């Protein structure tokens, strides 16, 4: 506001000078401020960035491992929920079971995405990925095991036979007591 008032006096209300005079490396008409050495900055760059990059890689791999291990906590949670849900088929237990199934499946489908932020040349993501996949598979297994305990898996002969129509007779016979 004050600025506005300050420029009120002039005919032009405000103006921006787009000529680059500070950041451009090519034109250095303006001197660097005192204490600023352009050389040192350039000199430093490689060491600092390397340090930084290392730290970042470390951080990334640490994070990746963290992410990879995240389903482990989930597993306990899930197991507890399943135990709570009981083994009778009702809305709650089915909901739990299906979420237990869907979660690992979704996670497995998005393995790449999950580890995308931690992608780095220096970071070996294979191990965390494998752990992640393994843990999710365990989760999936848990879900399937739950599904089975609920009796929703067609693992019995009866599940396959019930839909079969009875066989036809080749012969036909009729009759009875004479009328």
């Amino acid at each position, binding site marked *: 506001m004050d600025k506005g008032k300050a420029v009120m006096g002039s005919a032009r209300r405000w103006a921006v000078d787009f000529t680059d005079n500070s950041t451009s490396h090519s034109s250095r008409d303006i001197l660097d401020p005192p204490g600023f050495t352009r050389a040192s900055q350039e000199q430093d760059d490689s060491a600092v960035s390397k340090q930084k990059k290392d730290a970042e890689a470390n951080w990334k791999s640490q994070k990746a491992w963290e992410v990879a291990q995240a389903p482990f906590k989930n597993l306990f949670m899930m197991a507890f929920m399943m135990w709570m849900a009981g083994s009778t088929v009702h809305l709650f237990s089915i909901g739990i079971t299906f979420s237990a199934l869907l979660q690992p499946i979704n996670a497995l489908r998005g393995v790449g995405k999950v580890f995308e932020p931690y992608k780095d040349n220096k970071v070996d993501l294979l191990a965390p990925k494998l752990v992640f996949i393994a843990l999710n598979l365990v989760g999936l297994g848990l879900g399937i095991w739950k599904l089975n305990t609920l009796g929703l898996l067609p693992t019995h002969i009866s599940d396959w036979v019930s839909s079969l129509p*009875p066989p036809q007779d*080749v012969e036909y016979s009729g009759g009875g007591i004479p009328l």
Partner: protein
Amino acid sequence: MGCRCSSSYLEGPVQNTSLQNEGRRALMGCLLAAAAGIFFCEAATAVSTSRRAVHYVAKWKGITFMTSRQGLGVGGGTPYGFDVGDSERGTVLKGLDLGVEGMRVGGQRLLIVPPELAYGNKGVQEIPPNATIELDVELLAIKQNPFGHQQYIGKVKHAVFHTQKAARKRVVVSTEENVVASLDLRHGEICGYCHIFADVITLSSGGSVLRAWNLPDGQMVWESTLLGSKASKPLLLIPTNLKVNRDNVLFVYGNGFIHAVATIDGEVIWKKELASEGVDVQQLIYPDGSDTLYAVGLLGLSQFDVYQLDVKSGELLRHYNMLFPAGFSGDLSFVSDDTAVAMDSTGTALVAMHFQDGQISFHQTDVSQLIQDFSGGAVILPSKIAGSFILKLDSSVVFIKVRNDGKLEVVGRLGHADAVSDALSLSDGQQAFSLIQHGDGKIILTVKLSNDWTSNVIEETTQMDHQRGLVHKVFINSYVRTDRSNGFRALIVMEDHSLLLLQQGEIVWTREDGLASIMDVKASELPVEKDGVSVAKVEHNLFEWLKGHLLKLKGTLMIATPDDVAAIQKMRLQSSEKSKMTRDRNGFRKLLIVLTRAGKLFALHTGDGRIVWSLLLNTLRKSETCENPRGISLHQWQDPHHHALDENPSVLVVGRCGHTSDSAGVLSIVDTYTGEERNHMGSVHSIAHIIPLPFSDSMEQRLHLLVDANGHAHLYPRSAEALGIFQRELGNIYWYSAETDKNILRGHGVRKNCVLEVSDEFCFDTRDLWSIVFPSESEKIAATATRSLNEVVHTQAKVTADQEVMYKFISKNLLFLATVAPKAVGPIGSVTPDESSLVVYVIDTVTGRILHRMTHHGSQGPVQAVFSENWVVYHYFNLRAHRYEMSVIEIYDQARADNKEILKLVLGTHNLTSPITAYSRPEVFTKSQSYFFTHSVKTMAVTSTAKGITSKQVLLGTIGDQVLALDKRFLDPRRTINPTPAEKEEGIIPLTDSLPIIPQSYATHALKVEGLRGIATVPSKLESTTLVFAYGVDLFFTHLAPSRTYDSLTEDFSYALLLLTIVALVAAIFVTWVWSEKKDLQEKWR
């Protein structure tokens, strides 16, 4: 409930009498007066198979002690629901049950209920003894099946009019179906609570059971069993004013004894044996005012015997007889108290017998003397005209008067008459009788006076439906017209057993009583609703539909005005669409084609039970070529389902011309849409077996194999195409016959064309393949049962609680056969348990292999059995436990039991669905269990559904003429005393020694299907529901859902409410979406 009563073997006459029974009458009067406050005698009151919902407030001395109006819920408390007639079972106050009779929905009544119809003289809790209570009742709803329950009586044998001094004129009839009924003369309805006092005496069971009925309510007043040794024609004589020891007396002759019975209580005053010499007593005569009772009869058709007995003591006063060497033919016809007439054995002469004071005189007259052009074949018609009789000749009827000296005199002659009534005494001492003559599509009723043969009192012509056939019987009754002259009404019984009342040349009412004797039932589809419904109609329908549902919604939300309520009621009635003549989506609307004993076909609509068409089959009428025709069975002939859809479905009616098995058969094919006979074949070969084959031709006509008495199989339809199909399948077609007289079960194969004089390519020879001979000293075939041909089975596996599979042994060729020891064929209790045993077999009828055999020691018949899927349920009597028992046998296939690899099943490399031949040595194992059952069972059936998924119920026709639906789960051989939790989950009921009878499981509710003979079940298109038709003298139709109606919404489901909810939800979604969008935007602006 009406006042119709049926007794088991009613053969004797009905007579009407006025019993001087003041005491009982007063008692009845008192009871009726007490009930009069809530009694309604409206003939129009719907006969109800209904369940009613009421709100009631019960008060005693103004204090409300019970009400249904208080409580939670929209309209106060829960309405009280009960079945009509529940009071008879004691579950509902009698006063309430009777009091809502005749009420309309929405009506209110204040009932003042006397204690005997309420809590009686004992009181209940706060209600003191003998309290008259008030019930304020509002009838909320009646749920009823409009077909429900139809009452018929059968072919009328005797009729007695009760019109004198009666407020409501009635006729009491007894019928061939052993029914005594009282019909309202105005409407022809079986009359309910009507106040007239008279009593009916019936003699039944060959003259051994005498019963007195009270006419107002049809209650039996007393019953006397009259014992005797010899079977004889039962006779009943009720003198008008004779008293012995101040009691009115009636005389009964039956089983060789003459009994004098007091009319007040049925006590036998005296009895006397007359039949010791073998005399066949034909008439009891009591001359008014005398002390002597005459019993007149014949001995060996040549000796005329007269007994004179003292009426007071029964002492034989005199016995005299006279021999007539030429012999008589037929029965005596009595023209007066001392004269009888009979034909002689040659059939050419009439003999008048005069007997009085120990003198018998014969007077023989040649018929040709009386009638010039006599050519033989004369029959004396039973007519009871004083001093005269009627002789029926080939082409005419002759009235012959018997003069005092025994001379005969022709007094009149008429053209042919089809039926002649008994004489009716008029008030002025004259006698009148009527004749019926047939014309072209009409009948002529003539009433004559017995003293004037030439002129007619009345001659009336009435148009008559051809489908009723000839007149078989006529009964007349007179009434006094306003001009003091005599008018006559005639009750006529037609060939199709229908009953009509004629008055003044008009048919006042008709009753289709032929429906009381149904022989067989088949269901037929209705036509499909035609396409091409106009848009306007749809719009109209849609609008109406919406309007209707909005009204209903208003009703549910309790904002409906009384007008709206009325509109809703009206709509409910209309929209039920139960009586439409087209198929419905659920397959509830069908035609029931029934064949009656009279040889008439009826099509009944399942919606409202009305007769859509009826057809008196000419092939089943008496003719020269067919002397004693009778219908045997009905078969589905053509049932277009897949192709040939423009063809109408039809049924095959099979009949036979005589009573023996070698008499010629008759066949007709009847279109079930129109009721027209499409084709008929008279006097074909004899018919011993009718085997519907599981093949049909391109017209969807089912192939039938009719096996004659000589073992030749005849193929129908007689077309080249059918022949082609049959010859292709020839090697796989077998038949069997259970010869009950020889105790042999024989299996046959069909071979090649038979060798006859006239070559017939549709006739095939059969050869014997196997036979099972049952030891005749210990076993006699008592019952057989097979699976219904149309039964659909959904699955071959029975899954047990532990997820294991038992494979059902499902074969159409299984026969259940039960034999009992020959000694135990008699009634229950006629043998000791040690002498009797029941052996049951399950037999494969292709190979004759006995798959299962089991002996029930100490048991006897009658055996009733039903076979369905892989199980048999049968009912018999256990002599040791002295109770009825029901057993179940389930048959499982062991050969397939090793199909245990899931992978095979997943990949489909199993052979579980491949066709099975009976020759592949079946390995079966059976499970069975027996339970006690309280009732004796008359007939059994099983529910059948469209796909066979729904669980089954066994329908039992109980001795009380009700239909009990018993869940098959109770008859599961795997029931154990302590089922495991898994078994419980599977639905196995803990084992009990007897089968429970839950009152709610009576499919007939509180009704009785009088004289129940059979139950037919038809699947509807809705898998959960099966249609049940029970028939006897009454007809009953209902829907049963053994596992509840899981696949349909209830009729009063509010679609509008559903629509409203959906609309509201959509609106809510939209509104919240808009809101959230707005909120998002605001969030972003921040």
